[in-house]
């Protein structure tokens, strides 16, 4: 924290750091199977995302490169992870999109302005554009996103539903 902060501000900042530190420790522990303050590097994306961050795949790779040590054997130490994750959370990087922005993104994909996407359309976009989904991710999304009666995706309702569930 910068020196310009008042005493009070400093205290708040410390509280915030404490709280962030606790969140990081909790999220890390869930994936630390052997309770030895290390996790498999493949778990890192889950930890970072479960802490509420939404980096792209390329950004995720950059973070992992930064925390992975040469002699790590595929395991990441908490000591190495904590400061980098703290920085990300303090700087509020990779914030998740709001419901409104998700809705707008769906509208961009809905080129005919029909207020829904067919399963094929969604599959096409999600598995061919951006950081493409794998089969499991696609199946899981469709299993909950498709309106059981209509058979297509009413994205406005879906985005709202997901935002509620997420809190």
């Amino acid at each position, binding site marked *: 924290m910068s020196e310009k902060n008042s005493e009070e501000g400093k205290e708040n900042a410390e509280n915030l750091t404490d709280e962030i530190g606790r969140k990081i420790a909790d999220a890390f522990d*869930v994936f630390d199977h052997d309770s030895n303050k290390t996790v498999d590097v493949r778990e890192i994306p889950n930890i970072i995302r479960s802490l509420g961050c939404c980096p792209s795949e390329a950004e995720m790779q950059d973070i992992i490169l930064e925390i992975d040590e040469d002699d790590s054997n595929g395991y990441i130490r908490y000591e190495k992870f904590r400061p980098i994750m703290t920085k990300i959370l303090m700087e509020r990087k990779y914030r998740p999109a709001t419901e409104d922005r998700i809705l707008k993104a769906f509208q961009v994909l809905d080129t005919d302005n029909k207020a829904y996407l067919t399963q094929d359309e969604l599959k096409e976009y999600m598995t061919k554009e951006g*950081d493409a989904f794998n089969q499991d991710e696609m199946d899981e*999304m469709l299993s909950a996103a498709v309106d059981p009666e209509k058979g297509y995706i009413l994205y406005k309702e879906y985005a709202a539903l997901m935002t509620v569930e997420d809190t």
Partner: protein
Amino acid sequence: MGCGTSTIVPANEPSAQKTMKAALLIQMWYRRYLARLEARRRYTWNIFQSLEYADEQDQLRLYNFFNDMISQLHLSSENSDDNQQNSLLSLLRMPSRPDTEMKNGEDEDANLYKHTDPQTIVVPMTYKGPRLDYPLKLDHVQCLIDAFKGRQVLHAHYLLELLHETRRILKMNSIISHVHTRISQQVTVVGDLHGKLDDLLIIFYKNGLPEARNPYVFNGDFVDRGPNSVEVAVLLFACLLVNPLSVYINRGNHEDHVMNLRYGFIKEIMTKYKGHATKLIRLFGDVFSWLPMATVIDDKILVCHGGISNRTDLDYLKTIDRHKYISILRPPTSSRDGYDSDDSDYNDDITEWQQVLDLLWSDPRPTCGCSMNTFRGGGSYFGPDVTKSFLAKHGLELLIRSHECKPEGYEFDHDNQVLTVFSASNYYEVGSNRGAYVKLGANLKPRIVQYMATKQAGRKLTIKQRVSYVEASALRSLREKLYASKTILLEEFQKRDPDNTGKLLS
């Protein structure tokens, strides 16, 4: 910086790029949702695993409790002819070593047969279940499968016969089995089944019944916890009798009388066989003590239930008389058997016991070295260095073990030198984990086959539904545990809250 900051797509951007950015935004948002579900699933997993192992931790302590109880009952039964009590006593006495006067093998066999003679149990005319005669044929196995699917119970007479036949075959084998795939060109390894008949039937359905061209290694823990331990054991033993050279059954830490007392197998036998239960329990216990403790495939792969430690030595294991371990939870005692603590016989006993305990109870860990398995209360934790030097020393390439439930039914550890395979799906709760078995082809490269037994076949649950369901169940178990320990917890809380504020300082 992050894509999160690249907000709304400007209207003047080319459409392809707009589409790409929109898709990316949705993908990042959705992956965060999945990660949160995954975190919840792990929380749940940790709760179940902690509850499971907390239970096992008590096991060695529990042993002492039973020992005390046996001696107490023994004393009181001398002054009483209460039948009930005597039969309870004979149940509890199982874990002791064969009596010294029974050292002679033939006497022991005769004595066991006298107490478990199938001919003393008459099958009533009204019995509609499966009937067996020997030599057992593949048709009998199919007949048993059909009967068990229809929830029929094998009559005690046939079960005793089957167990005696199984015992006869097992006695001829040694503590370490050797399988060769030269002719079959393949072998299948199955992990913990824990009385889950559905899982065994799925494996047989997908992979075929055991036969000369389709050999199996069953890696222990086929009884306890699940509702059909008797049926699973019967099917494995029947397969063994039909194909003694194509079926290998390793002992797990649950093929053990003391574990069975606590984890459901004995209760299941008592419910299904009532008056004949004592005989069956005694004979099952004896059969288990004849099971091999490890199997070596093509001199390249070691299959055992738990794992190894830095003292595990296959050549030493070959010298062990496995039959004396009716229960493995009994540490050799110096006082009871009249040893001095520096007696070399006693020390040999301890060394031998630890070899067995390590094989059946150990778990691999990513950290190097070997330490006491404090979480389980028995066996060792072994690191990648232990695996590496063990395999090198014995000229092996891979260790296949079971013993731990894994979300995907299998897991590779120690630079792919250790493979865990667990075959009971939905072990903690419906949806908690997949089951898996391993197929080794001619090149011995492991190929994993996963499955999930579900009552509502065809109904595919989303991850969200599965996680929520299992989570609710974990919380329920945790609440039960808390409730069961309420008095102790309250006492401890009160100790830390002398002023009765009702609050604890963190």
